């Protein structure tokens, strides 16, 4: 089928737009500031006094390097571990990175991580979260999904 001038022009425009979009998304994906609000893991009236605390983590992406800096306070017991997990909002998923954390009920979280391209994509799709474990809550006491910082 022979393409008419208008049709051809439209295709060129669509192609150009697509390229621009792909380039733009890729560019945005490789840098930015993100934030996770840490709040108690799923709780009930039975556990509300033993799963406690809050915190904030700021994450800065440059290329595939993610710098993580944060703090937390008010946990029921000393922190033991902190991880970055891969899972869409409100859906738990596997650990993908380990973080440094103060082994106290309050303290700091930090790390400099090299993300894979898939993990960068997950970061941009709100599909990474941070989880803090503690002595009295080994499965986790604080958790927060990572979103682009406004």
């Amino acid at each position: 089928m022979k393409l008419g001038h208008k049709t051809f022009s439209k295709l060129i425009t669509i192609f150009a737009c697509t390229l621009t979009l792909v380039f733009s998304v890729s560019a945005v994906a490789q840098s930015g500031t993100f934030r996770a609000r840490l709040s108690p893991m799923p709780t009930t009236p039975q556990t509300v006094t033993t799963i406690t605390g809050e915190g904030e983590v700021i994450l800065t992406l440059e290329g595939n390097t993610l710098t993580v800096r944060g703090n937390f306070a008010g946990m029921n017991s000393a922190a033991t571990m902190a991880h970055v997990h891969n899972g869409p909002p409100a859906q738990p998923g596997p650990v993908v990175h380990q973080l440094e954390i103060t082994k106290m009920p309050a303290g700091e979280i930090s790390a400099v991580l090299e993300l894979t391209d898939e993990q960068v994509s997950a970061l941009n799709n709100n599909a990474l979260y941070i989880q803090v474990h503690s002595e009295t809550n080994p499965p986790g006491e604080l958790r927060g999904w990572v979103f682009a910082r406004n």
Partner: protein
Amino acid sequence: MKIINKNTARALLASALVLLLAACGGESTAPAASDASVTFNSQAETGADAFASNCAACHGANLEGTTLGPILSGNSFVQRWGTQTPALLLNNIQANMPPGGNDGISDEDYTNIVAHILSSNGVDAVTEALTASTDFEIADNISQVVARRSRPEPEPPQGVTVAGTIENFTPVTDAMLENPDPADWPMHRRNYYGHSYSPLSQINTDNVGGMTLEWVWNMYEGDSEPAPLVYDGIMYLINPGNVIQALDAATGELIWENWAGPANRQDMRNIAIYNDKIIQATTDARLVALDARTGEQVWETEVADSSKGFSNSSGPIVADGKVILGLAGCARYIPEDCYISAHDANTGELEWRFNTIAKANGPGGDTWGELPDLFRAGGETWITGSYDPDLKLTYWGTAQQKPWVPVSRHLTINDVGLFTNSTVAVSTDTGELDWFFQHVPAEALDLDEVFERILVNRGDDKLVFSLGKYGILWKNDRVSGEFQAYKETVFQNAFTDIDDETGLVTYREDIQNAKLNEWTSACPSSAGGKDWHSMTYHPPTGTMIAPLSQTCLENAAREVALVQGGGGLAASRKFFEMPGTDGNLGKIGAYNVDTMDEVWSYQQRASFHTGTMSTGGNLVFVGDLDRRFKAFDVTTGEIVWETRLGTSVQGHPVSFAVDGKQYIAVTAALGGTSPRAVPGVILTEIKYPRSGNAVYVFALPD
């Protein structure tokens, strides 16, 4: 509808038979009664510790109840469980409690907890250890109750307790209800269309900043989510415990008071006025008509048998001369139906019933798999419907199937369970179903679509809007029921697809296939993206303004035996903040009803606990858990007035006028289920008094 082949059906039948035999005592999971060292008293003693560990956080160390769980002692317990057996109590607790999960609680623990509850309530005529099949009637073994039955005791107040007369009362006609006087708020959402909108504009965006408290009236304590009625300068106020008061709406002076009973601490959201009567539903599923002038009872009728668990938490709407009422407490496996009923407004005589659960041999009967009628549960109508006088149709939302998760109810995600979680349009003449639209078939997370139906006319389009716990604003044609459009008002991840053409939802695969005791994480939680707090339609701007809530849950189904008298809800739940909300539970969202676009939204940490109410002054009012009552500009969403009340602001704001002066009224109140309990475990920093039910009335200074 899933087709079940014969082999599958036989297997299901065999499984059901095994479960039935086990539940009927074929096998006991309780401690061996033959162990002579185990007695009722020893079980009760051991059960005290198990209760303290697993139950006291919600029900109180002494079974006194808290804001998170009901009282389990005294008259409240005897009224609810006195005619039941320990086996049924055990069955109920095992299926439903504790709500956060029952890991580590053995069958023996559960039996001991039941013994502790019974012992604490005075069961003293028992020596033998309880088992899973102990079937004595509980009250018969409480010597105090037996003795009380044989001697007269002071009764709680009943009937008119404060006498007075409203002079020059003008009876309320159908025409008045179809087109209310701007000064009145004569039904739960003010008009038949359910708009929660007052055309009064004396108080407006320019002057609301000067609004001050005019009067306040303390109400009886207990669970309370009320909507006052105001007609011709009189406020009719439903209190906890089925108490109605008539107050001078301008001054707060009490004119009369009536106790219809039972005298409990339970909630009733609204009442109705028609002709010369105030008509109330009671918490024990009766309808009572009072003389609006004096509060004297005119007639009374039973809606359903409360001893079988039926109840009401919302009152009636009077449409076309009929008192139309829903029903709650339909989660048990009993032969009785769940229905909407209509009664003659002058006599209370039953005119028709519409069953919300399809029977096996009736329309929609094949949507419940192979379940016998006895085990088809749910479909409550616990929020009052609306009415189109031209179409002579009343519109109601129905609750979901029970138990909450398909696997617990011995069904699959394909067994959609008509007519649950639907909008039903029912003829007010005959009670026949005109059309239905099932918003969420085979509901699987305790997220029902039962709330108010708001009727809107846009050009020639006659529409009905609803917004359920999934936080999805639905727009349907109210003549045909046809799906028009939807809008997600809060984050939800339960559905992977909502069909733009049909509105058909597709659950996430793990929710579709959830197994017993398997945790599923989803948003929103059972507190609802929206719950009973009604939204308002603001006709001048074509805007729907909704009070929303942002939490999520983890949910795990429990096993429920198919045994008569059993049933229940049967899931363990845990709650957490909704990702992406920065911990803001409360949201007010304004939506253009033509485009369904969000016009503005406002978010805050405290959850909202009133309906929204809009006015001709371009204001929308709403109250929250943190005791704040606020007014927003309908157009911009800007907060233009705010005050703080004695306790959490809960109920339905209204506006009215007396002698040309406009008033804004709202209740501060306590109690409630998921919308209170879920914020209760997340907003632990928000403190408010555990008493303080009251109605507050505001106005501009004279």
